[in-house]
């Protein structure tokens, strides 16, 4: 099944969006049904154990902190994502590998399985700066198996669209918060220092993001 679309994020810069979409914690908090999303080394991922240790990371608007934990090309990440499809709510144990990550393009491939259902997916995105923000072109090519797949594209498409729409809406929300945080902080301590210094403007933040995460 192929899915794709373009989502417009307003009042932001490509760098900010890049930063946001590089942050596993922010993705975790934005992706509907995502319980955790963390980097893993092992070939076999023990999801039950991960679930216990997964709650540590806090959301932040601090580029420094995000840079520390940002997605890296070639690394693997594990996620537990519950998706409601028709009458079933399978929790997908998912692993994702970042195949390519070069501003403004990112591609990832992954697979997930839940009770009696599974998927394999390749996906990617490309950021375009526009007059009033950023447009994210995204695509995903998924092979879906088992119980969920049996419901066919008729059921799958609305689910995918709903998840993606919700995801970008939350990203948009977080981006507003992120800008606010930055206006209040110097970037060293993130949210703890909120309100202490005069804010950089947005372009200053973009520059800082560029510097910090090596764009």
């Amino acid at each position, binding site marked *: 099944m192929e899915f794709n679309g373009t989502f417009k994020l307003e009042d932001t810069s490509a760098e900010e969006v890049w930063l946001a979409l590089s942050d596993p914690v922010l993705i975790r908090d934005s992706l509907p049904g995502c319980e955790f999303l963390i980097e893993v080394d092992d070939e076999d991922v023990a999801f039950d154990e991960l679930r216990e240790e997964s709650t540590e990371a806090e959301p932040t608007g601090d580029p420094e902190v995000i840079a520390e934990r940002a997605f890296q090309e070639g690394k693997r990440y594990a996620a537990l994502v519950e998706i409601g499809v028709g009458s079933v709510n399978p929790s997908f144990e998912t692993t994702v590998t970042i195949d390519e990550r070069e501003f403004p393009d990112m591609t990832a491939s992954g697979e997930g399985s839940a*009770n009696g259902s*599974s998927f394999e997916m390749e996906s990617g995105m490309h950021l375009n700066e526009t007059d009033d923000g950023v447009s994210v072109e995204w695509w995903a090519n998924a092979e879906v198996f088992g119980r969920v797949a049996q419901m066919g594209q*008729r059921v799958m498409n609305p689910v995918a669209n709903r998840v993606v729409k919700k995801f970008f809406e939350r990203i948009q929300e977080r981006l507003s918060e992120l800008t606010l945080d930055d206006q209040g902080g110097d970037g060293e301590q993130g949210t703890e220092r909120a309100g202490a210094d005069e804010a950089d403007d947005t372009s200053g933040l973009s520059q800082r993001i560029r510097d910090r995460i090596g764009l």
Partner: protein
Amino acid sequence: MSMDTIEADEVDVSDVLGSAIERREDPALITGEGTYTDDIQDPEMAHMAVLRSQYGHAEIESIDTSEAEAMDGVIAVYTAEDIEETGTPGDLPVGWLLPNLKTPSHPILAKDRVRYQGDGVAVVVAEERYVAQDALDRIDVEYDRLDAVVDPKAAVDESAPQVHEWEDSDVQSNQAFDWEIGDGDATDEAFENAAHTVSVDLENQRLIPNAMEPRATVAEYKPGTEELEVFMTSQNPHLHRQLMSAVLGVPEHKIRVVAPEVGGGFGSKIHHYPDEALTSWCSMQLKRPVKWQATRSETYLTDAHGRDHITHGELAMDEDGTITGMRVKTYAGMGAYLSTFAPAVPTYLYGTLLSGQYDIPAIHCNVIGAFTNGAPVDAYRGAGRPEAIYVVERLVTLGAREMGMDPAEFRRQNFVPSDGFPHETPVAVVYDSGDYEPALDKALEMVDYEALRERQAELREDGRYLGIGFSSYIEACGLAPSELAGQLGAQAGLWESGLVRVHPTGKVTAFSGTSGHGQGHETTYAQIVSDELGIPYDDIEIVEGDTDEIPQGMGTYGSRSAAVGGSALVTSSQKVVEKARKIAAHLLETGEEDIEFENGEFSVTGAPERSMTIQEVAQQAYLAHNMPEGVEPGLEETSFYDPDNFTFPFGTHVAVVEVDPESGEIEFEQYAAVDDVGNQINPKIVEGQVHGGIAQGIGQALYEQAVYDDNGTLVSGSMQDYAVPKAEHIPHMDTDDTVTPSPHNPLGVKGVGEAGTIAAPQAVVNAVTDALSPFGVDHIDMPITEEKVWRAVNESEEGS
């Protein structure tokens, strides 16, 4: 116009055969009194659920059942390894062999590899049904997914993923068989000399049976007596017993198979599936009764599907439009394994019907059977014959178009003539009897054909597109002379048994080895026995579906029950009468030859006042105080009836539709069906079978299709995604008949179970393509959705 039924007590015994007596099985079924497999309860009963592969094709790397086993209420979890450890054969046999047929092992649980979505991987037995289902989710199976192939033609390509590995063969291929029938050289010659030829590429799409009651099994193993009792949704309990004996390694006489009420089958309950063996095996392990009830989703995934043909067909004609030859090449999908009778369906039940109603001098048909990563394909209502008649009637329709002839007249010109029977075709069968023109004429009259063509022309001027579609079909019922079946590869005889037991009070219980599941056998068989014995219909009880009660049996499929099962009851009844005649002659103190028998009364020729009723004779037979020399007491007889030939019902159906080329919508104007099924035992039941059959055929023509994606995932796996037609989709049907008795069975019956399903699809397709002929549309594959109509119109040259 629908026929009224008659109450049994209003019918005199001399009129009982051929009367539209009300079905006696309905009150119990419609009040919920009938016992289906899932209605069977036992306080000790455990419940089995099957974990099925989510992949169309994958290696099984590991199975971890520990979490499921640890659940409260779970009694046991078993995998293929556990079955192997018990030394159970556990491999499903194929019931019909072809030359050079590849027969892969078909284990009741997949071992190292799953080959279609739904292949069983493990079973859970639990105290409660829902616990068993929940426990399936706790079984952890590691798969390594493999590429799949689902298209039968693509499957035999060298580069296709291989469904099976053939250890005993150098050639690794998905080809199950390469089968042919007819004279290839003569056919080629016909085409070389042809003045006109037409051809068509068509698909006969994969269908899912959708019986109202999903499959189910209740098995109880009794360790004390080592007996295994299996209640199951079966169309042929004796066959299931015999096959299960081999699969489970339990002696046949220690197994009792019972088919309680069975809610439809359409063929899907003929076959031996893994599930009934698994349920039985679990019961043997646990020494408890075990029940398995398929969910609707499971039936979509695992009931043997139907059809799945990709065909290229050609027709040769001389300059007058007389058919001189037919050439057919078909790729038939078999699915991942060979189901019980699967090899027979696209071969002997298909190629032998390609002559249709026509006198065709040369026919050649080549069928390549292909393994694919789909559910096994086997007999589904019509089984091979709908596929054949679809090819024939599409080609004939195109032939008429090529010749610029009226499709009805083109058919008439090529019919086997009325005086041409018995008719031997170039594809190995001999039509018993037929008279094709009267059925066509009646159908033309019913739709007022000439006026209809005029109206079609008028409407076209207004930009409206009416289409008239013909289907002059033939059908082969009453499978089959056992000797012939054996020569063709059947691993069973195809006779039928019937036992007629007259009780001392003159009441009767008759037993048949067929196994009805909605057909109304309890009514029609009682009519047959009542007519033969002259005993009132209400005094006759019919028993089917229990291997402990019935001598032997081959079951109900292929529209064989009346022609073969009914004939066995006739033969047994006649034997009863002959024995009773001996007793009556003795008691009336005259010679047997002087005894006449009519309407249940034995009388002395020329002295009708000296008589005895058959009931009185029965009483004397059991008293046995005064029996003729050498005659045993009692009055019951058994026979095994082996048919001399198939029977060949036929008819003409006409569909009239209006097609909107812009929206693609198809609306029925009329549907007329004239069926000749030989003598009719109960015309109301015949009418019902025709109605249901047509509905199913229209379902195939316009709505139904089993769709697998490239990975072998069934994406039409529920009633939301697989369109079984609803009442609103089915037009009013005008039905009528002609009667040409079969000359070779005592009832003169032919069979009606599948006729409608065989007749209807091409009537509809021919109507739609007739409507769209101004756009140059020759063919649209089924199901003809609105989108396909729209595309056909827009892609054709003349359409714009």
